[in-house]
């Protein structure tokens, strides 16, 4: 009996094992992810994928830091690119993941069952971003390899050399043309998505860059092709201007019109085409306040006087046309200037949370302390929670692109002046903004000594002022071949005498004193700025303009227009060959 039971038991057990043993479901797929087979079927799928392209665009913090390398700012942290210690082992930016992402899309989007119009729209989007990617690469490195496909691990093209700039930029232009023709043209009131209008504006930027770069960088031997690009810039800008979809933002408070473009949570889409949108309730922030008002977190960037001098007076005259323009105390010199000055730096009766806020030498070296991108409330000073959206492309730039391209082409007419530079100056409260007939010697001597066209000089002045801190400056210097300006001496406000506290905002309270040693009895509220006559000094010894960071030797030679390819990449693929000067 027992033996029988045991036998049954054994049989049952063996059967159970056999049953479970056969049920070997080892092919398990993830249940929370898509795969190439499931990700490209509907228009919604294409949109889902296309959203990832937007990571190519600069984020708010990239704009905040956009001008860290420029001629008109001085900061606490010397930029190694200009201070001589830079070499290819420190080089960065040779990153290609975004391109693969676009090319992968271009290889798969046709799987989707959508209308030809939709298909072309998404192809246009992908190609717009590919153009954005390659434009960044070319600006940085010059020649780069062109890839119109994703690469396999064993693709020999991984090890190919660089393609010529002409080939790459022609491809960029082809992509942009396709984008302009096929991306949908509905204006985006949120200024966050790519539309035909954004593509046109961007095309004007790219073409102006390439045209002027080829024109001034004669060493490329491409000067003869410059005009073609400049013409494309004009065409693209003109198409946007004549569409009348955008205009310069104006309101009933002219003194705030310019600044409002940078401190609003919702981009002002009458002027802003595309922005890095920040949003308080979605908790997407930039850190402008922290960056620009912290001595340690930010770089303590301040404008130099040489640049501030270029702001016109409100009556339309040049500040630098008056004698001894370099010997006017801060509180006086900032008065009656282009309204954009008070919307770019702290001055006058600027207040924060109801209290006067003169330039704070805790954060500024020169006295010209930027406020353009920040919020006036102190609430976000120590925390990355700025919710103001920052423009990536705005109509003012398109006007400037148009003006400059036309001026470079020598086709600039007074009607062009009126609809571009004059329009900008009028918004800035400048009276008599007529087209100049004489070249400004200040600009020529201090900035662009190779330019004689009075109009072109004014266009460049305008571009510097209008787009200050928005991340254009270094690219502009590059294409104008004006990199030497990065060797500028860093000068600050005029100091009439040492050891004397000065009132910067005329509120009756002294704010700063320049000293060699902090006195034992201190005036309350005064910042004692210590100079040692090596690093920091006054231009005339015991008085004069503040000169800061003077001991740091700056150099910008022609080879620096092209950034080096990271050392490791040359080792991995010697065919890339290093840019000249960096070997």
């Amino acid at each position: 009996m027992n033996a029988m039971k045991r036998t049954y038991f054994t049989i049952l057990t063996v059967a159970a094992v056999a049953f479970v043993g056969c049920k070997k479901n080892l092919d398990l797929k993830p249940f929370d992810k898509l795969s190439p087979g499931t990700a490209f079927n509907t228009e919604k799928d294409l949109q889902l994928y296309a959203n990832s392209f937007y990571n190519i665009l600069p984020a708010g913090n990239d704009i905040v830091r956009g001008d860290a390398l420029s001629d008109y700012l001085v900061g606490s942290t010397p930029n190694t690119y200009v201070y001589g210690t830079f070499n290819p082992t420190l080089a960065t930016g040779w990153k290609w993941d975004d391109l693969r992402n676009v090319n992968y899309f271009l290889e798969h989007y046709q799987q989707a069952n959508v209308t030809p119009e939709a298909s072309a729209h998404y192809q246009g989007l992908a190609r717009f971003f590919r153009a954005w990617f390659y434009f960044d690469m070319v600006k940085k490195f010059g020649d780069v390899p062109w890839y119109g496909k994703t690469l396999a691990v064993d693709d020999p093209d991984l090890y190919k050399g660089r393609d010529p700039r002409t080939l790459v930029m022609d491809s960029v232009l082809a992509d942009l043309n396709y984008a302009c023709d096929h991306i949908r043209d509905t204006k985006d009131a949120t200024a966050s998505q790519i539309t035909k209008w954004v593509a046109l504006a961007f095309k004007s930027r790219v073409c102006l860059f390439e045209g002027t770069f080829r024109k001034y960088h004669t060493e490329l031997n491409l000067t003869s092709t410059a005009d073609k690009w400049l013409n494309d810039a004009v065409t693209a800008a003109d198409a946007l201007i004549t569409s009348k979809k955008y205009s310069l933002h104006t309101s009933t408070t002219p003194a705030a019109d310019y600044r409002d473009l940078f401190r609003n949570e919702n981009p002002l889409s009458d002027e802003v085409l595309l922005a890095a949108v920040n949003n308080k309730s979605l908790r997407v922030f930039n850190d402008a306040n922290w960056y620009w008002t912290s001595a340690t977190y930010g770089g303590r960037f301040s404008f130099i006087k040489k640049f501030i001098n270029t702001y016109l007076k409100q009556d339309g005259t040049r500040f630098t046309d008056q004698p001894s323009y370099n010997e006017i105390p801060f509180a006086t010199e900032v008065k009656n200037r282009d309204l954009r000055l008070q919307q770019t730096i702290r001055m006058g009766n600027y207040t924060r949370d109801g209290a006067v806020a003169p330039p704070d030498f805790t954060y500024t070296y020169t006295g010209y302390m930027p406020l353009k991108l920040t919020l006036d409330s102190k609430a976000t000073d120590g925390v990355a929670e700025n919710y103001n959206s920052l423009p990536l492309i705005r109509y003012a730039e398109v006007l400037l692109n148009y003006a400059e391209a036309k001026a470079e082409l020598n086709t600039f007419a007074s009607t062009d002046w009126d609809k571009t530079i004059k329009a900008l100056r009028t918004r800035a409260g400048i009276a008599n903004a007529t087209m100049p007939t004489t070249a400004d010697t200040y600009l020529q001597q201090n900035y662009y000594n190779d330019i004689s066209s009075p109009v072109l000089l004014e266009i460049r002045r305008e571009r510097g002022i209008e787009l200050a801190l928005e991340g254009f400056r270094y690219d502009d210097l590059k294409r104008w071949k004006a990199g030497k300006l990065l060797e500028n001496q860093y000068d600050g406000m005029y100091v009439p005498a040492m050891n004397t506290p000065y009132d910067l905002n005329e509120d009756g309270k002294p704010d700063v004193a320049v000293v060699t040693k902090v006195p034992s009895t201190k005036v309350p509220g005064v910042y004692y700025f210590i100079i040692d006559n090596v690093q920091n000094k006054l231009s005339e010894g015991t008085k004069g303009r503040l000169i800061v960071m003077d001991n740091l030797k700056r150099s910008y030679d022609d080879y620096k227009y092209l950034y080096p390819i990271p050392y490791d990449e040359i080792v991995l693929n010697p065919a890339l060959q290093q840019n000249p000067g960096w070997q």
Partner: protein
Amino acid sequence: MKPTIFYNRRKRLNYTFRARYSSFWAPFFSSLFALLLLFHCPLSAHPFSGPEVKGKVSDEKGAPLSGVTVNVKGTSIGTTTGPDGSFTIQLPGKEATLIFSYIGYGTAELKVNGQSPVTMIMRQNDASLQNVVVIGYGTQKKVNLTGAVDQVGGEVLENRPLPNLTRGLQGVIPNLNIRMTDGKPTRGATYNVRGATSIGAGGNALVLIDGVPGDPNLINPDDVESVSVLKDAASAAIYGARGTFGVVLITTKKAPKNRTKINYSSSVSLNDRTVKPDLVTDGYNWAKTFDSAYYTWNDYKAHPQKVNSVFPFSLGYLDELKKRHDDPSLPLVDLDPVTGEYVYYGNTDWLHELYADQNPSTEQNLNVSGSSDKVSYYLSGRYMGQHGIFRYNPDQYKTYNLRANGSVQATKWLKLENDLTYSQVHYFYPLLNHPSNTPVWRRVSDEAFPIAMLKNPDGTLTQNASIVFGSFVSGNNYSDLTRQQVRNTSRFTANILPNKWRVSGDLTFMKVNETENRLYTPVPYSTKPGNMLERGESKMNQDEDKTNYLGFNIYSDYEQHFGKHYFKALVGYNYEHSLLKSLYIQRDGLINNSLPDFTLLDGQNYTLTGGGNEWTTLGGFFRFNYNFDEKYLLEINGRYDGTSKFPQDQQFGFFPSASVGWRISREAFWEKLESVIPDLKIRASYGSLGNGNISPYQFLEVMGVSKLNRVLNGVLPSSTQKPNVIPNGLTWEKATSTNLGMDMGFLNNRLTATFDWYTRYTTNMFTTGLPLPAVFGAAVPKGNYADLKTRGWEISVSWNDATNWSKPLHYNFRFTLADNVAFIEKYNNPLGLIDTYHKGQRLGDIWGFETEGLFNDADDIKGHADQSYIRVSAANTQLPGDVKFRDLNNDGVINLGNSTLDSPGDRKIIGNDQPRYLFSFTAGGEYSNFFISAFFQGVGKRDFWPGSDNALFWGAYNRPYSWHPVSVENNMWTPDNPNAYFPRLRGYVALNSRGELQVTQSRYLQNVAYVRLKNLTIGYNLPKKLVSKAGMSTARVYFTGQNIWTWSPMYRITKDLDPEVIEGSDPETNPDSGNGMAYPMLKTYTLGINLSF
């Protein structure tokens, strides 16, 4: 019937005798055997005369031990104790030594000199428990082991209140490496066996509870009978691809034979921090150093205007502070006449504000067990609660364990068993409301300055308080974590042919739910009277992980004797499936701060994600044992394993192993040595196991969907992107290990020693392939590209003895020592880059500069190599007292070269951060009714680089405004103190990249070897009479101290860091916030009672 096991030669005879004939003639022979036993005593009685000694043997709890073998040393005279533990024995002469031996209790000796009666208390101990060792799918007699297996009994956890089992196992088994990273009561740890496993897929030891995977942090430590570690491939092979890097087998307690037992234990503890940093708390002194550190970094040109983010500072304020310092009668808080805001002149001891003066904990344990012939049961319950360390809104830890185990002998040959456990851990933990989600310690080090204060005169929080732990004070910012586990195992054991062929099977179902809720509500604070402000986010989130596990084992073993040949074979099948489902929800905007519920949130910012993963493994396994006369031992294991984690054509692998042993002490020629070394065995094993530890789905092209961190058209849309590039020809990583071991017993096995030496090659490790040019545009696919060699050894020595000082004194010592090192044998790094793995690299090597000293004077700086790579200040102007680095390659420049092995610049290997020579020392003693035990544990060698943001080590050198430890303050270079340890005071040099104290270098590398008294217990067993009056069998009280003493060579520099938990920061908030920014390690003083009925 249960055969008594006799020691030495006799045992062997009986055992063979029994086993050999048991197959068919079992009933007959067992009767005969019983008869023999019956006649055993009289037969053994010696004819010649001497005094007769009466005596009694009991266990340490006073219970009588029956069946204890009592022999007269050097003779064949022997007897066994009766049911009441008593015995009578005839001595051959007046003086003699009695040897007592009993399974599970080892042997003990007692000298008798005519006195009678005598008493002997036998104590359960490690060495004896190891007589039978738990191995994969069975047990094995220790003497017959051929693999590297180590086991400890549950007594290592006794009288030691522990938040979880893992803490209790640290250090008790050599080369079972458990590194606790901080003192948080929820902190578990991975179980590592024998050092570095794989730099590719990784891998830890497989932890099994009664043969089924489980979380050791959710088990009641009081339920643990033994913990066994299978260290080498040969022992672990039966578990296949998941036992690649060792197996930890936790066996739980079962009911005692034929009696009912109730056990109750209770304890209360006081916990305190092991380390209490000695920081400057005087406001003026602190501010002076702060100002100075800022000033020096800024090249003596700029004084600070703020202390970090919000606290205003100026030289005028510093003067004012001095005034208050000199005249303490002045108020600590003023109002600024202009702004109307508070101005603070504090001397705040923020750590005193942060931590409670004491934090108690308690543990209650009750278990009831019993058995009859057919039925047995074991029920247990435990509560452990710990009140946390914080003064405001402190953390609370509560854990509950319930277990119900029962078995039925359904028929003569079929036994059914069921084991049901429920565990719950609940942990409440206060949170900061700060966007960077840093641990509180980091925030305190960054924003809680002695000059700042916690509260305003009107009782509101200050702004600095709102940044640091104001959220603790205001409440409603916390994490609430609950982990629940239900686990049920049903088992059967069928003796198809009694004592010969068995079939066993078990089915386990386990459900683990873990839910964490976090709530953030803005913290109110005030900067001027009557003006309340708020800081922080208003949001709530919930993170849920649900795991369903199903495991199934069926196996059968068969054993047979042929003369002196013994065979045993085991075959089995294992199937496991696990499904994890996650859910995470978050939303902003509490409508009402006092009602945290998702219904009552209306923010636009929300997140809702799911996800999870699934895996299945299955495998068939076998084990074959052979021995000849228990002298020559052989074991062969193999497993054919399949896993869902590999592509279809690679899902299965076969992994064999073999081990052999030779018990030299059983050879005839050993006869003469037997009295000195009664036991000597050498062992060797070799085996190779696949590593199935990779995370699921690695071989599939997948496209994750996630929320874009960019506002498009007013929302944060979802997005997907290009898939990963899948690896080519993925195959199993393999770990091949060789083990050589030796077991010895000396001096009648009072001294036992085990030594093992091993190497483990982990080959085909799943690592990143050869770097591709960046134009590839994706992460380089991983593949089986790298090899690793780990080698090491472990030794354990135990001494168990007893003497008689009017009453018996039992004492025992155990010492263990283990070591391992690992080398990269192959890695894709043709350039020999130092900062990534490279061939020949020893894991843990620290590359750094060699510190020559501190600069003496300007000439010293001038004459030295160019150090401009290293930064000492904003403008990088070197001064005397700054750190001087040696120009190792004599090129006149201090730099990194190409950071390759060929061109390392001025760096070299200055140390190694892997713990070496891990040791433990246990001592125990028992005399009369008292008992004492001590457990020391430590690391013999280890280097540690303090790292950036280690404010407790660097003080103002890190951030000028952070903590200023007194030990740093007194040890700074000044012209008057040129021999100080730390250089000229400069802020940020330990923080900013390339700072003179940020670069790794020899002078500031710390030796963090340590020895720690982990546990010291002193106890008293209440007198028998008293106890039995109360109806109890034993009652004891004890006092235990844990982590009460530590020493480390690092203490010469600082005592502000705990060398045991020196690395990393609180992982639940932000693990990269700087070393030491974590829940402090605790020392615990406990008073406990233990009652048995």
